[in-house]
């Protein structure tokens, strides 16, 4: 029997009971739609995290102190927070190969005032290199310069969120704000950067020379410093990472590699990818279970259908249908249910993903890969769950089938 004839017969018997066919198909539709949506959400989340990690800057290396390790024997006399020094920054910049920029980062926070307005924001004491490392662009005004750092001038650059909350109508550039009651002149406003990978607002920030920050804003008790470095190229990162670690150990007596944490942007990206891939797989597996349930629904209905049509099977065999013809007829019916259900499911899932993306303001991504996966999966479901009922139909005894009432 030609495939065309078999498909025609299949269509005929499926349209004979459209309600039942549709309900059976619904299981697959929902399953495939769920898989498509979940994969899209997973992929969307991954895309956002990737973008956020890229917003860190280019080829960034982050050097911090491992507090857990340094609280032991090798702690410096001024406390673990001050294990890193400004001199380390200079040393990294000057003696590690393939380093473009390096900047200390002191982090603090506090009350900021301008005229009647109040706001709390993170304050970072940095060197001018910081702008390059993190691709910080100035939207209006200008950044601060090395001379400001050297002289410890009370100048700063503010992020968009800070600008919006302190200055409703006025241009912030050139104005003087009070950070913890100390007046700072606003040199410029940064371009918006959005959220970072941890979900915090990168525009709710004030950048000031680290010298000024150190002298004016940091208390004596908490002088934790982080070093941000930018490597020449992606290829350089791994090498530079090791060199920095070696350099720091040689500069600080009695320390081991345990005392410092040198992370690269690549490390962070990989870790984040692992998390989002795991999340995607988890979501898709849960959705996959509903696809499986849909497949069991097909098997159930096909078994009913075989029983209902025993006589038909007998008649077909009597006029010359072979086992193979009968087997194929029922498998193709099952595959058609699952395949058509799969196609509808893809459109439904695509729509659902778009809707979710729209309301959550996420860029969900329906990839050709996920479409292919669910199409082939629904095929396999059809063949797999159609097989048993079809096999049952094709191995019926002809005489018994004809006599069946």
């Amino acid at each position, binding site marked *: *029997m*030609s495939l065309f*004839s078999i498909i025609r017969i299949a269509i005929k018997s499926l349209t*004979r009971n459209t309600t039942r066919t549709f309900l059976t198909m619904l299981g697959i539709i929902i399953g495939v739609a769920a898989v498509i949506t979940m994969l899209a959400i997973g992929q969307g989340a991954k895309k956002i995290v990737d973008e956020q990690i890229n917003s860190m800057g280019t080829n960034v290396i982050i050097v911090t102190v491992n507090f857990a390790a340094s609280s032991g024997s090798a702690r410096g006399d001024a406390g673990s927070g001050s294990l890193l020094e400004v001199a380390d920054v200079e040393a990294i910049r000057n003696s590690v190969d393939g380093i473009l920029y390096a900047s200390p980062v002191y982090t603090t926070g506090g009350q900021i005032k301008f005229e009647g307005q109040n706001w709390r924001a993170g304050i970072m004491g940095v060197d001018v290199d910081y702008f390059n490392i993190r691709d910080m662009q100035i939207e209006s005004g200008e950044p601060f310069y090395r001379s400001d750092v050297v002289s410890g001038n009370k100048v700063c650059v503010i992020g968009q969120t800070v600008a919006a909350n302190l200055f409703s109508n006025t241009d912030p550039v050139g104005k003087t704000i009070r950070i913890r009651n100390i007046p700072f002149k606003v040199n410029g406003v940064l371009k918006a950067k959005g959220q970072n990978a941890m979900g915090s607002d990168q525009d709710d920030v004030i950048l000031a020379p680290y010298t000024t920050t150190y002298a004016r804003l940091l208390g004596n008790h908490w002088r934790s410093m982080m070093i941000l470095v930018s490597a020449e190229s992606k290829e350089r990162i791994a090498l530079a990472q090791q060199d920095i670690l070696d350099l720091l150990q040689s500069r600080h007596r009695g320390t081991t590699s345990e005392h410092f944490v040198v992370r690269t942007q690549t490390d962070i990206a990989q870790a984040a990818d692992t998390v989002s891939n795991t999340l995607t797989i988890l979501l898709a597996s849960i959705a996959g279970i509903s696809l499986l349930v849909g497949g069991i629904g097909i098997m159930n209905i096909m078994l009913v259908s075989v029983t209902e049509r025993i*006589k*038909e099977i*007998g*008649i*077909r*065999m*009597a*006029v*010359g*249908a*072979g*086992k*193979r*013809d009968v087997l194929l007829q029922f498998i193709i019916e099952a595959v058609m249910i699952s395949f058509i259900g799969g196609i509808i499911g893809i459109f439904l899932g695509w729509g659902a993903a778009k809707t979710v993306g729209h309301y959550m303001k996420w860029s969900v991504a329906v990839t050709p890969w996920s479409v292919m996966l669910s199409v082939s999966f629904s095929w396999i479901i059809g063949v797999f769950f159609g097989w048993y009922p079809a096999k049952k139909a094709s191995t019926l005894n*002809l*005489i018994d089938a*004809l006599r069946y009432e």
Partner: protein
Amino acid sequence: MVKPLIITKDLVKTYIMGDIHVHALRGIDIQINEGEFIAIMGASGSGKTTFMNLLGCLDKPTSGSYSLDGIDVHSIKESDLARIRNEKIGYVFQSFYLLSRTTAYENVELPLLYRTKLNHEERKAKTLLALRTVAIEDRAHHYPNQLSGGQQQRVAIARAIVNSPVFLLADEPTGNLDTRTGVEVMAVMQALHNQGKTIVLVTHENDIAAYADRLITFRDGRIIADQKNTNPRNAAEDLKKLPIIEDED
């Protein structure tokens, strides 16, 4: 010159149901020649249907041999058996066995669908020819439940002959029909016989058996009589004499 179409040797069929062995056929030796029109008679349970099912390759014998048109049927595999059913045999059942919710045309076309060699036009030509042969082409697009018993049986006969089989088997084809419709069906059978078809038919009625040219009688799974009918009745002429009881159209 007679050419043997069917030769059976010591054909035995025993149904085993638990401890009980039902000896439906106890050794049938028969030769059927091309162009014969045979009627099989016998009491209920004497094994007629069982024998027909073996001849029609719907079932396999417990022992014995059966050769059809030179093919040793009992030694071939299942898939080839389906092909023989499709190409060499036309089977007409007592209760028609038409696919419901499928038109007369599609029912008749069914055996042709299992032969991929034919294209759409060839199938259509053969189907229409078969429908015309049994004079039912005006009902081609009716469903079985829209047809009378006689019309349904004519559709079933059309399906049996559509693939030009070498012989036609009919198990009580008139059993579910009234006398006049029965004679109508026999007229179709006789016409096919006159075109050269070999026909084997089971019946309980002597009047129906009288249209055949050879009469075989079964009892207890054995053949007890096998005689020629040198003067078969003519169904077409009988039909003219019969009053029209019910207009089917």
